């Protein structure tokens, strides 16, 4: 019995001791010093170097240049956290002083009406709109006088391919049209060796809409009408686009049926194991793990094909859309005001300056959005980097709608259903149109 009492007593002491010191730390903020709290994205492939960069390089340097400003930061690494932080801050008018959002989140952030629209004076403080890639700014707001986001990194999409499998199949250069893509993939595919021309990931939460939207754009369609009032996910180009993607499994047999349960990470693993010829919609963030994989000497990036299947050239209204305007934007919430707001703008100016942008690339893998960062910088003088930059020039912005987030989720629901139908042998091609029609109705109801 003695022991039990002792245990109880020590447990109480322990837990009280663990909770007490924390309550003291709350009330220490001096009035003179302005504190900035950053909320920044990290990807686990880079998380340690990224946090180290903030801790050891960016923040000390900024605080040295701007005495009187203190910078803290917290990180997120999933869209779940990104979403909930935005939602909780919006509901409570408290939270980080600067948000870093993925570009496809910016329209949703804009819809919450909780971020500062940057004035021309603000832009002047950041260093002017002109220092940025024009395409990246297209996701900063609905129109140039209503920008809330400042691009700080970009991440164009490319096609990843396996040079060894290309050599084996006797393919000299990566395809530039989808017809060539299918043909090349057929030559690479050898199911008995579990070797496939390409890979799909219909179970992913985000990849499906990216693929569907890109192919739809190339055929001249879009998911929303120009005025953002009408959903057009059930339009003919959109149906053709999604049908084509699943045809890779059902008709051309260039992707494994196993892919029906894949998320993007599974697709990436498959590529890294050396069994996949081509994987579309990949970014430079994949490089660190590619470098340690089986294909470390065989991977290469190329622009994604941009001529629809069965066509010699794009239809007149088709867009190249080799990449979606993609990357990260910084935005300042409205509850940040006065000296803190000025400090936030100073941070953004600092962070998007050439020196920092180049360091971001070197240590984090994101490409600079500051155009000047590309001149006289050796790291960009490689074919791979040129492929990325070339993709970026043809970058297409997604419609700037507050309902885009809903659309992404609904679209993933559609591809999930189709994958299930194929797996359970209940699939008919007409189902795609049906599912897209009900998706269209649902998205329509969330448009404002």
């Amino acid at each position: 019995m003695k022991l039990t009492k002792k245990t109880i007593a020590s447990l109480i002491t322990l837990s009280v001791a663990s909770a007490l010191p924390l309550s003291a730390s709350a009330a220490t903020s001096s009035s003179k010093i302005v504190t900035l709290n950053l909320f920044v994205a990290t990807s686990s492939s880079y998380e340690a170097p990224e946090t180290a960069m903030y801790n050891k390089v960016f923040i000390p340097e900024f605080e040295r240049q701007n005495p009187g400003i203190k910078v803290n930061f917290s990180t997120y690494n999933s869209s779940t956290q990104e979403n909930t932080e935005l939602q909780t801050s919006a509901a409570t008018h408290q939270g980080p002083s600067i948000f870093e959002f993925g570009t496809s989140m910016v329209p949703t952030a804009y819809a919450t009406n909780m971020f500062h629209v940057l004035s021309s004076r603000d832009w002047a403080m950041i260093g002017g709109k002109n220092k940025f890639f024009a395409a990246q700014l297209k996701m900063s707001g609905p129109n140039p006088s209503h920008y809330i986001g400042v691009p700080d990194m970009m991440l164009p999409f490319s096609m990843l391919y396996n040079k060894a499998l290309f050599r084996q199949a006797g393919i000299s250069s990566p395809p530039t049209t989808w017809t060539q893509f299918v043909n090349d993939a057929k030559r690479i595919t050898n199911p008995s060796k579990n070797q496939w021309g390409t890979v799909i990931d219909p179970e992913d939460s985000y990849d499906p809409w990216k693929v569907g939207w890109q192919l739809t754009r190339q055929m001249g369609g879009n998911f929303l009408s120009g005025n953002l009032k009408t959903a057009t996910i059930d339009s003919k180009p959109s149906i053709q686009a999604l049908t084509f993607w699943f045809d890779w499994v059902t008709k051309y047999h260039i992707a494994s049926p196993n892919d029906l349960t894949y998320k993007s990470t599974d697709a990436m693993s498959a590529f890294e194991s050396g069994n996949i010829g081509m994987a579309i919609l990949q970014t430079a963030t994949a490089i660190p793990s590619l470098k340690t994989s089986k294909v470390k000497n065989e991977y290469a990036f190329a622009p994604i094909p941009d001529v629809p299947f069965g066509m010699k050239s794009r239809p007149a209204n088709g867009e190249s859309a080799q990449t979606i305007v993609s990357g990260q934007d910084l935005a300042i919430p409205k509850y940040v005001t006065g000296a803190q707001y000025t400090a936030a703008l100073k941070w953004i100016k600092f962070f998007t300056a050439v020196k920092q942008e180049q360091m971001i690339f070197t240590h984090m893998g994101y490409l600079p959005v500051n155009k000047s960062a590309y001149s006289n910088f050796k790291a960009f003088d490689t074919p791979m980097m040129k492929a990325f930059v070339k993709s970026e020039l043809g970058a297409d912005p997604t419609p700037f709608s507050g309902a885009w987030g809903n659309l992404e989720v609904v679209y993933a629901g559609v591809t999930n259903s189709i994958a299930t139908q194929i797996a359970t042998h209940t699939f008919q091609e007409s189902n795609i149109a049906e599912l897209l029609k009900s998706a269209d109705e649902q998205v329509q109801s969330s448009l404002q």
Partner: protein
Amino acid sequence: MNEQHAIKKNSLMSSGYHVGSRNRRTLNKIRVVGIVVFAAFILLPLAYVVLVSLTPDSEVGGGSILPSYIAWDNYAMMWNTIPLAKNILNSVIIAGGAGVFSTFVALGPAYLVARFRFSGRKSFMLSLITMQTIPQVMMLLPLFVIFIIVQNVLHIVLVGQYYTLIITYMTFALPFACWLLISYMANIPVELEEAALIDGCSRWQVIYRIVMPLIMPGMVVTFVFSFLLGWSDVLFASVLTTPATQTVAVGLQSYLSSGDAGGTVYWGQLMAASLTSGVPVVVIFLFFQRYIVGGLANGAVKG
């Protein structure tokens, strides 16, 4: 049929009473077979986890089962890819705090409900059940709003503090803990307490000197379950923590979510880190095991 019969027989043996030697041999055999089956059931998936944890990251999911070499460095690299040690410590503090506090806070209502009739007693018990059927997901945003209101009124920082998460997990664990302790409490005879009260002990002394020692196994079980509730949560922890207080579940999730950015997952490291993060829990279980099973059997209570 045979097996069912055997299970029943076994119970007698478990009770530790005389059984014929032939009978005992059969029961032993059943136990051995049972343990082997259970061990296989438990260990096969775990073995797979161990195997993956020793596979180079990029070979996982490739199709071959055995790695081309044993990647011990997964166990070295995982400490730097995410702040694993800090995350584990945070989880131990938060889940441990939630476990300890829920157990002690629940002791009061449990004692009251188990020992007294009062109006609202049944409603209280029923409302505990009701609380468990509310999807926790739904509480996330309102709870956050409440925290911010409290934060503004009292001028203290709540988000990102250990105690905020501890309190949050307590609310999941409290209804659980109350129910568990009520049922344990009900099994303890009241005679000892009566005697103590007659001897002039205060209510508090009765609880501290008589009830608590007797109910120790129940308290340990309650602690363990409450601990695990907090240990496993991902959703609330991802909103209510900062990097300094991030729990291990959130840390491990960051391995997975790099896929969002188009990257890949360090499967090998993830599995190595998962196994490592299980160690503190196993240690806690080992430490408390004898209390769970010991306690009541020691003869303090009979009949």
